[in-house]
Each structure stands twice: as structure tokens, then as C-alpha cells.
């Protein structure tokens, strides 16, 4: 079976940080003041977005509880191969791009519910006639203690998703205002 290990088939099991690593994280965080900016890098999203494709971390709530007391805390995660961003309490979440394999947004699968962040303005729908489209990479700027993701998207317009101090959440610097969005960003 040449497919990503989905949780709707026998190939998959959900991501989990696990008790041991959570204990390590707690001990590490206990060493620093709550005002210290924290940046966590994780393969899995540390959120529960869509279980079917493992956009998911089974013990996300427990991990978030460890991060929640910090004033400036940011999670940068992979796995999803697409632009995503979210704000849960004080925790900001930003995804990174992949240099291979476009992946659809869960809202394009009609048979299952998902909990994708309403904050996220999706990428343009992938155009298969451009083989690098829907892949990319990014500069990650953390000098303020908050994250600015400067996405370099092959064969497509670049985008920036950056912390907005006025609203207290990550936002796309161009498309966050619904009036500025463009038809290719609609996924269905």
C-alpha cells in the first residue's frame, strides 16, 4: 500500500509525545522564567487538527498545558506539507513547508470532519502541471520572541505569516483580511 499511514486504515497509529518526553519537556521548561520566549520545534502539530491523515498529536492537550504558562510561546511544526497557523491561548502555532509532495487540506475530504484552524488562510490549490507547485521552504524569524514565517513557494507568490502584536496572533500579512483573498485559496 503506497499511501501515507492513515488512521482510517491498519497502517497507522497516531503521533504521541508520550509521558517520558513530556517529563523531559517539563523539567527543561522549569529551568526558565515564564517571561522567557520559548520556541518548540516538533514534527507533529501538537494540536488535534484532523485525525484521518495524522494532522494530530494524541496527547496535545497535555503538551499545551506545559507550554501555556509562558508569555511568549511558539510551536513550529512539520508533517502537514502546507501553510497552517493557529493560536490556542498564549501558544502560537506555525507550520513549515516541505520540498516534496503537496498534500491536500483536510477540508477537501468530504467524508470526515476536521478541526482545521479558522485562522489559517490556505495556500493556493496545487497546480499539478507545475511539479514544484505547492512545495517550498521558509525563513523563520524569531528575533522578537514571536515567529515570522517567510515562505518561499516555488512557481507561486511568496507569503509571510507573522505574529501581529495588535491582535495577538499569527496572521498572513496580505491575505488575513477576507477582502484580499483570491479564488485559488478556496479548497473544497
Amino acid at each position, binding site marked *: 500500500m503506497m*499511501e501515507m499511514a492513515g488512521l482510517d486504515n491498519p497502517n497507522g497509529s497516531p503521533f504521541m509525545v508520550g509521558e517520558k518526553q513530556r517529563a523531559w519537556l517539563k523539567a527543561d521548561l522549569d529551568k526558565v522564567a515564564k517571561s522567557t520566549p520559548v520556541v518548540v520545534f516538533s514534527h507533529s502539530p501538537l494540536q488535534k487538527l484532523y485525525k484521518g491523515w495524522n494532522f494530530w498529536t494524541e496527547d496535545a492537550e497535555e503538551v499545551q498545558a506545559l507550554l501555556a504558562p509562558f508569555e511568549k510561546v511558539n510551536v513550529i511544526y512539520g508533517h502537514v506539507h502546507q501553510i497552517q497557523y493557529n493560536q490556542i491561548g498564549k501558544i502560537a502555532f506555525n507550520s513549515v513547508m516541505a520540498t516534496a509532495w503537496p498534500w491536500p487540506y483536510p477540508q477537501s475530504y468530504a467524508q470526515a470532519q476536521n478541526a482545521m484552524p479558522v485562522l489559517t488562510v490556505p495556500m493556493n490549490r496545487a497546480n499539478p502541471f507545475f511539479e514544484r507547485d505547492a512545495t517550498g521552504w521558509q525563513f523563520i524569524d524569531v528575533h522578537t520572541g514571536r515567529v515570522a514565517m517567510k515562505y518561499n513557494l516555488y512557481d507561486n507568490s511568496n507569503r509571510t505569516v507573522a505574529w501581529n502584536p495588535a491582535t495577538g496572533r499569527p496572521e498572513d500579512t496580505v491575505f488575513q483580511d477576507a477582502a484580499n483573498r483570491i479564488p485559488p485559496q478556496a479548497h*473544497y
Partner: protein
Amino acid sequence: MKTNLAVVLAAAGAVALGTIAIRADEFSAKDQERWTKEYMSVVQKGRELWTSSALGTNNVACAQCHPNAANTHPETYPKFQKQLGRVIALREMINWCLQQPLEGKPLALDDPRMVALEAYITYERRGVPLAPGKH
């Protein structure tokens, strides 16, 4: 002679059918059950093809870009495929994918494997209203 034979066979057929009281518009819940089972076996065949490298030459499978056949929009076909510059059927787009990302050969449009792929794609999209021509 041929005509007579046909008449005789038709009559024999009518007698045979008459004995089990089948009319053209009659079918039972059991029939429906069987037809659904037949259909689902083709959907399953489609899923197997979708998740295998059998249709290509480069070890790539449809499911690697389209998990659960997502992002295929079967309800929008036939539609103007902007990259090809004309209105096409879903099967032509399937063949495009077989030839490009999978580096395989196109299937005949009535190939049972093509029917199976389409059965799987549309099954995963069931319940979504038709939107022909939508991009």
C-alpha cells in the same frame, strides 16, 4: 428460418421468465443488495489501484498526492481544464496523471481499471452536490 428460430427462442424465454414472474421493472431488496456488493467490489478494486504503483513506472501512487482521493473534484467534471485549454472528462485528467506524475501509459477510457478508479474517486466524494464546470 433465422426469424422463426428467434421467435421460438423468444417464446421459450417468455415461458421461462413467466414461471418466476419477473417483469422488466421488478427488483427486490436482495437484488439491490447484490448490486451494491458488486459496486463496492469495484470501488475496492479502485482503492487498491489508487494506493499501488501498478499503473505507473516510477513507484508513485495516486494516493501520495490524493489521500482518500481528496482534491480530485469529480463533481466538477466535465469542465474546462485550464492547463489543457479545453473541456475534458474526469477520465482524461486521470490519464494525464497516469502519464505525468506516475510516468505510466494511459488507460482506454472503458478499461475496467479506469472504471474502478472512477468508482473509487466518486465514492470518496459521495454526498457532494454536482458542480459541473466549477474550477
